[in-house]
C-alpha cells in the first residue's frame, strides 16, 4: 500500500557519531588489568592474614577495563575483604596505604555504597571515616572526577 520508494538508508545512520562536538574519550594505552586474584585473596582470608588479603585485593584494579563482569568481580572481592575486617584493624590497614591506595580505597567504598547489601553500608562507612581522615576531601573529589572508574 504505502511502500516507501525513496532511498531511506540514511535513516539507519547514527548522526550523533558525526557530531563534530562529540567528545571521544582517549583510549588509554595501558594494559587492561584483570582485577585482583580471587583465589589468592580467599586463601589469605582463610589463613586470617587480613592485611595481606587487603593489599592483594587492592592490586590490579580494573580501571581500564570495559568489561562489567571483571568490574563486578573485583568489587565483590574487595567488599568481602572489607567486611571481614575487625573494626579495630581498619585504622592500621588504612595507614599502610600510600596516597594512590587511599584514592583507590575511596573508589571501592563509594562503588560499594551504590549497591548496598545487609550490613555493607555500615562497614563501608567505617572504612570511609578512616580513609577520609587520611585522604581528606581531596580523595572524595578524586572519586567524583576520575575518568577511570573501577
Amino acid at each position, binding site marked *: 500500500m504505502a511502500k516507501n520508494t525513496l532511498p531511506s538508508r540514511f535513516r539507519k545512520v547514527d548522526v550523533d557519531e558525526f557530531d563534530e562536538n562529540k567528545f571521544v574519550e582517549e583510549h588509554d594505552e595501558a594494559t587492561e588489568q584483570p582485577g585482583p586474584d580471587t583465589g589468592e585473596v580467599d586463601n589469605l582470608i582463610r589463613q586470617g592474614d587480613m592485611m595481606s588479603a587487603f593489599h592483594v585485593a587492592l592490586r590490579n584494579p580494573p580501571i581500564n577495563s570495559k568489561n562489567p563482569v571483571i568490574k563486578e568481580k573485583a568489587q565483590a572481592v574487595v567488599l568481602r575483604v572489607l567486611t571481614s575486617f575487625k573494626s579495630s584493624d581498619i585504622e592500621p590497614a588504612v595507614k599502610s596505604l600510600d596516597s594512590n591506595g587511599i584514592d583507590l580505597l575511596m573508589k571501592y567504598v563509594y562503588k560499594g555504597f551504590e549497591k548496598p547489601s545487609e550490613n555493607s553500608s555500615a562497614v563501608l562507612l567505617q572504612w570511609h571515616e578512616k580513609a577520609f581522615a587520611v*585522604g581528606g576531601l581531596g*580523595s572524595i*573529589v578524586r572519586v567524583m572526577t576520575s575518568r577511570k572508574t573501577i
Partner: protein
Amino acid sequence: MAYHSFLLEPISCHAWNKDRTQIALCPNNHDVHIYKKEGNGWTKTQVLKEHNGQVTGIDWAPESNRIVTCGTDRNAYVWTLKGDVWKPTLVILRINRAARCVKWSPKENKFAVGSGSRLISVCYFEQENDWWVCKHIKKPIRSTILCLDWHPNNILLAAGSCDFKCRIFSAYIKEVEEKPAPTPWGSKMPFGEVMFESTGTAGWVHGVCFSESGNRVAWASHDSTVAVAEGGKTAVITSLSSETLPLLCVTFITENSLVAAGHDCYPALFVYDGEKGTLTFGGKLDVPKQSAQKGLTARERFQNLDKKATSDTKEAVLESLHKNSISQISILQGGKAKCAKFCTTGMDGGMAIWDVKTLESAMKDLKIV
C-alpha cells in the same frame, strides 16, 4: 593581611593598573567597575558599560595602560583612556560561545582570549586597517579553555582546558614580531604548534601559570591536584594530590614556590623541588585570629549532642579571611620571581591583600624558597 569587602556579589574577575592604585573588577554583572584607592578605602571612579553579558575576564596592560575585557556575549573590548574617560574598541573574536579568560602578552602587542568555542583567539592590532584582527588556535583543543598565561618570551601561551589537559601553544604572529629563540619547550614554534600537553590530570584545569623564567608551568585542576611541568627534551611532570577541595587559581611567587587558592577559601603554599622532582604542601597561608577557645558548658555540650549528634567544638563558621571560594589571585609587587604582595578575590565579593614577609614571620614552619 588587608581585607576589603567590595560587594555582596561575587567578583567575577579583577585586574590592577601599573602602580596598583586602581583596580578594575566585575561585580558579577555586565559592567566593569574601576575603584581608586583613597587613603584606607576604595572609591568607585568609573563604570565601563559595553558588554551584553557577564564580563568573564579583565586584564590591564601596565605599560600601555589599556584594559581588555571579554564576556559571555562572545565579544572582547579594548579600552583606552582618552582624557578621563575609557573608550571601548570592539574586537571581533569570531567565536560562537562565551569568552572565558583574557590575557595581554608581556609586550602588550597582542592578547589571547580563551572561549567555550573550544579555541583560543590570539588578537593583534593591524596598523593599516586600524583594527584588531584575530587568529584562532583550534587543534587539538576538545573543550572550553578556562585559563591562560603567557610565557615571558611573548610567543608561548599556556592554556588550561575542560578537556582535562594543560597545553603550551605557540602564538607566534609574524606580522608583529621576530622569530623567537629556542626555549626548553622546543625550538620550532609556528603558530598553533603544541609545544607541551599534560598527561594524567583527571579534572578541568582551572588555573595555569608560567614561572618567571618561563621554564616551568604549574596548573591546578578540579581533581584536587596541583602539578608542575619543567620544560626540557621530555617535559617532566610532577603532581601532588591534595587533601583539600579543588583549587581554582595558582601563581608562582618565586621560581620554586607556588601559591594556590580555591574552594577552601584560603591560599596555600606549595614548594617544588626541581632536583628531587617533588611537589609538597608548604602550609596554609591564612592564620585565623586565635579566638578565645572558651570551654563548653555541660548544657552546651548536651545541646550540641542533641542538635548535631556530636560534642565536637568545631563550629561551622569559616575561620578564613575569605568567606567563600577564592577565584582569582594576582601578583601585586615583586613579580613572579620575588613576590612581596599578592591579592585574592573571590565569590564573597571581597579582596584580600597578602604580604609575603608578614606571612613568613607569622607562620614559623613556612619556608618560601
